[in-house]
């Protein structure tokens, strides 16, 4: 399966990646080769087979629904590239 540069650009937009045109070309070639290789899964009959999302767990384990201490705001924000008070700061969303 040959992926076009336009398809790569669309996937990059979905993945929030700003790729250069050189990267778009390279990924179009490499992803096409990988998709060709994984196409062998199409030869299997999987009708009636349940999907496995986790190998060993019947279901996710849940904790008691009780409040407990969490990170204090100053620790949670300590790594933020930009902050205002106790909030993360980001560039303008609306012009």
């Amino acid at each position, binding site marked *: 399966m040959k992926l076009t540069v336009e398809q790569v650009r669309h996937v990059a937009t979905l993945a929030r990646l*700003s790729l250069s045109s050189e990267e778009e070309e390279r990924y179009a070639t490499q992803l096409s080769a990988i998709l060709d290789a*994984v196409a062998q*899964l199409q030869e299997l009959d*999987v009708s009636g087979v349940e999907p496995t999302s*986790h*190998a060993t767990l019947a279901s996710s384990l849940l904790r008691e629904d009780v409040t407990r201490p969490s990170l204090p705001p100053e620790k949670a924000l300590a790594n933020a*590239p930009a902050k205002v008070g106790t909030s993360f700061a*980001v560039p303008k969303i609306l012009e």
Partner: protein
Amino acid sequence: MQLTDLTLLELASKLASGETTSVEATRACLARIAQVDGKVKAFLRLDEHGALAAAEASDARRKNGNPLGPLDGVPVAVKDIFLTEGVETTCASRVLEGFVPPYDATAVRLLKEAGTPILGKLNQDEFAMGSSNESSAYGPCHNPWDVTRTPGGSSGGSAAALAAREVFGTLGTDTGGSIRQPAAFTNTVGIKPTYGRVSRYGVIAYASSLDAPGPMARTVGDVAALLQVLARHDPRDSTSAPADVPDYLADLEHGVAGLKLGVPREYFVEGMDPEVEASVREALKAYERLGATLVDVSLPHTKYALATYYLLAPAEASSNLARYDGVRYGRRAREVKGLRDMYGETRDQGFGPEVKRRIMLGTYALSAGYYDAYYLRAQKVRTLIREDFTKAFTQVDALVTPTSPVPAFKLGEKVNDPLSMYLMDVCTLPCNLAGLPGVSLPCGFTKAGLPIGLQLMGRPFDEAKLLRIARAFEREHDYVRRPAPI
């Protein structure tokens, strides 16, 4: 003999008897790192001050007769994927540069509670995506057996540091073979525990349904001792298993007499290095001599495991790595035109080519129109692969295979050929898809002196038996005692 030539359990014994101290052992490791790490590049950063402070505290406890446990004072180091409170953690990525975690991963906390000084953070493939340690944003790690070759990946630094005798034990993570393949390439021992056996809390996520943290060391006994510290239920990880934890050292010397070992024919693949195959076949004969019965088994869906893995893991990665957007931690691109531009530029500047490739592949497999054909189908094939193992384990106690079809390859040899690189995981990743425990241990050398690894896979939560089987082989051979020529 240098202090750093001791195994982890030998050092533990000398600490217990007072023949040496944790400060001496920690200083010996730091001296060895200063001597060889310029060539190996296993460490991304050292925490000399923290490790020595922990060693002093350990010695004080020993002096007062109240050590925290058998490993109190034994220096270790951890892959840079584990969060370490107050010590920069980057997962070998530029996108996390400057990130100083506010808490420890559970595995790190357990090591600290056992009294082990933590020397620093070890090199790896960026976000654990790779099989050669070459995708690290900080440069590749080198194999102490031949510095022109890869130590394997993604836990390449964890393996190389052990082989270079810089440290006594390390932590790695294994999503598709990232503990076992580097162990095989470096003449060390690594165990990928059953999924859920060791907590993933505080381990930077790559593919959440496959990631398994685990210990690496130079002998089977050393790995068993570390697993004893790490294996426990963690309420902070909803996928942590509330399973009983046996005494991993108790049955270690009980041998393999009477056990049935399966030899899956699909693992002796076309293109396999003849010297690797010969060593593994010799190991199988050794197990027969030791009283085990070899059983020919078939895992018919093995050939689909690679494709299944390289759809599921990138799909999960594309979701997990969405959090690196420059808002809460790590890198943020400057001079951007609004929020969307900041996301795109931050991620483009922060991620390396392999990470971008997997994010793109995963995003594609999950996107509208392709989800059923790729992602959902791969999940169904995963079921078939699991069922193969379940069936095999009705006949045998464990499976024995090569860990890698080839010995350590040259740095740069496969870096521009992703498909060829992905093939390096062909023997290890079915184990992750099925959530099973797997061990790699040394089983010989090529004529050129490169290590060869033997893989054992077992039933869920049957790590004790796998370690016992591994030890039976190790006891009869001197491979683990052979030092790397660094």
